[in-house]
């Protein structure tokens, strides 16, 4: 029995079994059907609607606008440097 385990035939048996198990796993893995894919696209769109709703936005004062612009420009020059 030990001889058989160490033989080339034994090795090939194990290798074939391993390949079989791998192939079976890959084949039986859940794949995305067309309908579930469509649902994911729709979900992405709804996600955006969700994150953008229920928000309050306040108009900026002149001072805030100036501060914002300065921050954007300084960050831009920092990134370039």
């Amino acid at each position, binding site marked *: 029995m030990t001889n058989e385990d160490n033989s080339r035939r034994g090795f090939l048996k194990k290798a074939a079994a391993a390949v079989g198990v791998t192939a079976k796993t890959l084949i039986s893995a859940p794949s995305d059907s067309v309908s579930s894919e469509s649902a994911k696209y729709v979900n992405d*769109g709804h996600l*955006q609607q969700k994150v953008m*709703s229920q*928000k*309050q936005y306040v108009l*900026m*004062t002149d001072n805030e606008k100036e501060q914002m612009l300065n921050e*954007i*420009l300084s960050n831009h020059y920092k*990134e370039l440097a």
Partner: protein
Amino acid sequence: MSEERKEIAKVTEGVQETRRDLLKYVGLAGATALMAGPAGAEAAASAVSATAAINPADADSTITEWLQGHYVLMSDEEKKKCIDRLEKRYSAQYGKKTTVSDAPPLEGVLFGYALDIAKCIGCRSCVHACVKENNQSRHDPEIQWIQVMKIEKGNFSFSADKLDEGYPQPSKFGDHGVQVGGNAYSPVGGLSTHGTQSYYDAETVPEKDFFYMPVQCQQCEKPPCVKVCPVRATFRDPNGIVLIDYNWCIGCRMCQLACPYGARRFNWGKPNLPSEEMNPKTHYFGNRPRMRGVMEKCTFCIQRTRENRNPACLEACPVGARKFGNLLDPESDVRKILATKKVFRLKEEFNTFPKFFYYVG
């Protein structure tokens, strides 16, 4: 050795080589599959079949594409080869001469965008122009980078300087159900997106009692999507535009989770882009056809703006609600709007410093 034994040895040698090769291939395929999972196995298989295909039109991608590095880090020679390869493949795949530009960023430019929500009529011309220009998936699945939100009038105040007055007042800005002022229980110093609808299907627009707010990538100056990308596939270019190297993207969707505006779209399946509708003038980081498993989003039409043209959404807007320009130039439209109009930004509390501004004309 007898002739018979020699013959057997020859045959056995052949068999051993074949068997060894077979085991090598099986092992390689198994290892690839185990490392990358079912999607990876499928991708590896498609890559192998693509290489073996004689006609490049049959190839989804090539092994070379799979193994190429980040485009920004490539040498000039590698970039040229990459562009040539893509142009050849797209031309064959879509049956028309396709160009892939890699025009560099403009000098001394920081792009900004402004949108007048008092003018927008919710016609979605911008959405359709964007889809057409940027080679987005058309039907099943349909991908749109711009989402137009329909918001009820009355949720909108044009004045921030009268917040302390206590009670809503009529506005001089017209019949928008506008409130000016408010109190601690009902802040009305801006816009409330309560009851927003993005998938409206009205026969005619604008609908009475509603106004519209298109939302797309805000091209943040401090973009959270860039910070979370584990492979730096998404990055901010010198013109302030957040771009994606589609070939370097691993499809982890971290950027989609990080984006506070929900502006990114993931290709769950193979995009459906009919040949006759494909725009053959593309940019590597912009509107070139994408593949399954990668992220995409608005780039302010980089293929146009890097050639000193306006984005497609701006050109398509029938009411002139959209303005685009250089934030470094004080004489640009956007800077003038910032200086003179009532402006707000989306989710400014996140400190992302979006360069997309909404204003009231």
